[in-house]
């Protein structure tokens, strides 16, 4: 799974929380400019961490339930999960090295 898949409210538990490897979720919406800067960086990470971690994108317009459950109040926001627990978050556009650092906390 080298490319991030879309995830919805309904699949959240099975895809993200029950994943056997660390997960990074990109919360985005079509109207959000900076989200479109983050998106290709997440795509690149998905290639680099192929097999080691899974990557998802969640459209906050269509999946308000999950967005509000995690208190998303600004996008882009990236959440990192390990064993169903959130281990880190990145709010706003950050360079790829920061995203990597955040994801690597799930491997620490």
């Amino acid at each position: 799974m080298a490319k991030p898949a879309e995830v919805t409210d309904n699949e959240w538990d099975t895809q993200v929380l029950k994943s056997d490897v660390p997960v990074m979720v990109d919360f985005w919406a079509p109207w959000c400019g900076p989200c479109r800067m983050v998106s290709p960086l997440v795509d690149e990470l998905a290639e680099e961490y192929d097999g080691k971690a899974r990557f998802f994108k969640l459209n906050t317009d269509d999946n308000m339930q999950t967005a509000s459950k995690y208190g998303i109040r600004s996008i882009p926001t990236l959440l990192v999960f390990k064993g169903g627990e959130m281990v880190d978050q990145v709010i706003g556009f950050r360079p790829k090295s920061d995203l990597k650092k955040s994801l690597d906390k799930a491997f620490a």
Partner: protein
Amino acid sequence: MAEREYDIVIIGGGPAGLAAGLYAARGMHRTVLLEKGVVGGQISLTELVENYPGVPTVNGFDLAQTMLKQSESYGMETEYVDVTGVERAGQKWRVRTGAGDFIGKAVIVTAGAEYNRLGVPGEERLTGKGVSYCATCDAAFFRDMEAAVIGGGDAAMDEGLFTTRYVSKATVIHRRDELRASRILQERAFANEKMSFLWNTVVEEVLGDEQVTGVKLRNVVTGETSEMPLSAVFIFIGQHPNSGFLDGLVEMDAGKHAIVDEWMRTKQPGLFAAGDVRQNSARQVASSVGDGVTAAIAADHYITDTFRE
């Protein structure tokens, strides 16, 4: 760390920097654009740009991306790095960044401006958790909740009006007893049922643990303090130029804007400043583009004159 040589180093990827890059690259100069965040700068957060001549309406982010592609198609390189300092390197300039030094025969500073923060407890900790500087980005997450809008200028009214598409109530909190915003925006704001106004009042603290739950207020006339429960604080209290790394190097006005002549030249030969970072910028996409072009042409002349073999 590695040192990289260019003809022209541009600091900041907003409209001024992108336009400078286009002209510099088309002028056959080896050109690099250094950007610390999102290309486009302030316009990357603007939903609709409606006053860039020749383009009736365009999304700000899309406009910036188009400009970037255009400049890169002529050979401009782009690096995502944070600039920490600029200094002389013989005849040339050294730009220090977190990813090594960039050497340029000329440097064009188009670092733009950034929104002011209130500087109160809770603000930084709760940014992205209810504290926001961009209603068009974040207001959708506060559907049917109450929000505060801090400020009394055009941006506060414009963005405050935008929040009313989502929030149940937007309270404008302003430290004076009247607005500074243009009349048309004031009228729209006063006519909007969801907007109310709290005058002579400042925010002392943003409250909340994981999320914003309220603000602590102080009336500047009576000195009385109070708390107001709400879920979002949108802050629009002006902006300041990103000129910190020019301290002691170029002449600046009281507001820390670089002082330049009509060719965007600072008093330092080979060092130019254009767009919102300079004094008396009109702070428009179109004027910034003009500034950037002027600076690139002036830099071209400077390089030709100074580095003639």
